[in-house]
């Protein structure tokens, strides 16, 4: 598990990315946020989201993660492990 501080910083950056990709300034992501909570989150925008997150944190999700992540919490844990130094 990521430290609280790391997690807070990742969440803050993710929040920015989510607002940008889904074009919705009211989005507040939490560990529990999933595709069911955001109307614009479909298979098409999912690809854009993954690509923006990968670019921001300088890392790659594995294919099983792209298709299998259930919520933002899982995404945060993967980012915490794999982000390029200095990107969080």
């Amino acid at each position, binding site marked *: 598990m990521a430290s609280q501080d790391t997690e807070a910083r990742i969440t803050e950056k993710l929040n920015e990315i989510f607002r*940008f*990709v889904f*074009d919705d300034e009211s989005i507040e992501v939490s560990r529990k946020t999933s595709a069911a909570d955001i109307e614009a989150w479909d*298979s*098409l925008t999912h*690809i*854009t989201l*993954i*690509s*923006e997150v990968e*670019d921001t944190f300088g890392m*790659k*999700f*594995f*294919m099983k993660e*792209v*298709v299998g992540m259930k919520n933002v919490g899982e995404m945060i844990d993967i980012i915490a492990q794999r982000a390029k130094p200095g990107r969080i």
Partner: protein
Amino acid sequence: MAKLTKLADQAPEGLPTYRLAVIGDCATQHISKAIKGTGVSRGVSIEILDTDYDQILAQTGDPGSELYAFAPDGVLIMMCTEKLYDRFTHTPAEARESFAETEFGWISDRWAELSDGRKVSIIQSLFTEYDDRIFGSFASRLPSSFIYQLRRLNMLISDGAAKAKKVYPADFSFFTQKYGTDAVKSSKMYAVAKLPFAPGAIPEAAAVVTDIILALMGRSLKCIVLDLDNTLWGGVVGDCGTEGIQIGDYGIGKAFTAFQTWLLELKKRGMLLAVCSKNDEDKAKDPFINHPDMVLKLEDFAIFVANWEPKPENIKLIRETLNIGMDSLVFIDDNPFERNSVRAMIPEITVPEMPEDPADYVDFLRSEGLFEAVSFSAEDSGRTDMYRSEAGRVMAAKACGSYSEYLAGLEMKAEAKPFSSFWFPRIAQLSQRSNQFNLRTVRYTEGEIADIAADPDCVTLYFTLSDRFGDSGLISAVIMKKLDADTLFVDTWIMSCRVLKRTMEEFIVNRMISAAAAAGYKKVIGEYLKTPKNGMVADIYGRLGFTRVSDTRFEADTGSFKFNESFISES
């Protein structure tokens, strides 16, 4: 990519529109959005019909398909290397040497279906190179290998497109080579979402397609306006003199030699070059006359402006003299202050943000995708000479007492004949490029021009013009279509603006009427369809002897037409 998607959703109203249908054997939603977004950023609205996944044949083969119902101006056929490889691996060994032919046969059948009686341009993706490394380098001499067949297929598409006339290959190789396969392809994203490119490369791929669309819409750059000091050579000629500038082997001169060489190639393919420099004119011209290492010579420039006026003013002068649209100019200057002042005063002009190191000039400008073409004719290479002779005429006019004296002294001769195959490429090009002197702005490709020339219900005329200063080549084309037994409708009248105000318009209208009469028609109907750019011809029919019959239409009776005075004789 997300930025382009947003732009796509915010297209302002009133932009020129292009209707593009996208069919593909891979996921095309992302690239479609990005094409739309790129279009908005470049000032056009590209309306897109993005068909469902893997529906190429279903769309092209069924006359009742949503593609045909959409009535597109263009169709993008987006095919991915992954699917090609699938088909290759399922091809038996004995058929692999003819794999490319088989694939091309299938693709060209789709082109034929799309073009069948329709006026549609086809943008066909070329296959991104991918080597399965089964044979290593040996594959390149082995006709049964995948990479050998892929390259051959790309060549077959290129050759086939040249013959088909209305097919334009989308060549992604420039940016895929620049960034590399690791950056532009993603096996993961293909596996998950059937994306033909990595998400980060989709804007580049979309730009390739959008550039072609813009060129098809007649929105291509025509003239490169160049600064001199530290742009075309190193150093300031006013300070160091011709012998002190860096060009050729002196200092960092090789960087400028490479840049001038590239510009000369662009000039040879028809781009106009112009100088806009803050210098004394004689000092600015001296290197072009006296420095042995200069690649560009004075005669390579359509116009040379060197003085101490602000550059935006000089650029306006260049635009007026050459008589082309401001949005067809690109301004290249090493100085950020000049670039910003030009951008601020002339928003329509393209101003690339040049790199600081002159060694990077060419690589940078190549990457900007500024110079897309959808046609090329032998006449393009001589375009600079025509514009230069125009400058000679401007001088002669200044020396003459009256304008009609000047016109009479030009000894102008024109040819007026029905379209012939030699001129098809040039006529198509004029049709695609003319924005200002264009009565109805109907665009035709070379293949369509050939069809019109052969149509017994069409009366066509092309016009050339020459005078004692030089030959302007083919400068106008007229297409008149039969409405009924007595009436011809002027479907197209386009003319190059460089021959304006020389009584060419009068000459053309006279010949329209006489050609119609000779073909047995009693009436000619002309129409003016307004665009943001063609205001100059709004009243031309009225001015030249037609009678207005509605908001847009004008009529002339071939029997009683009063012919216009013209200083041009038919050769």
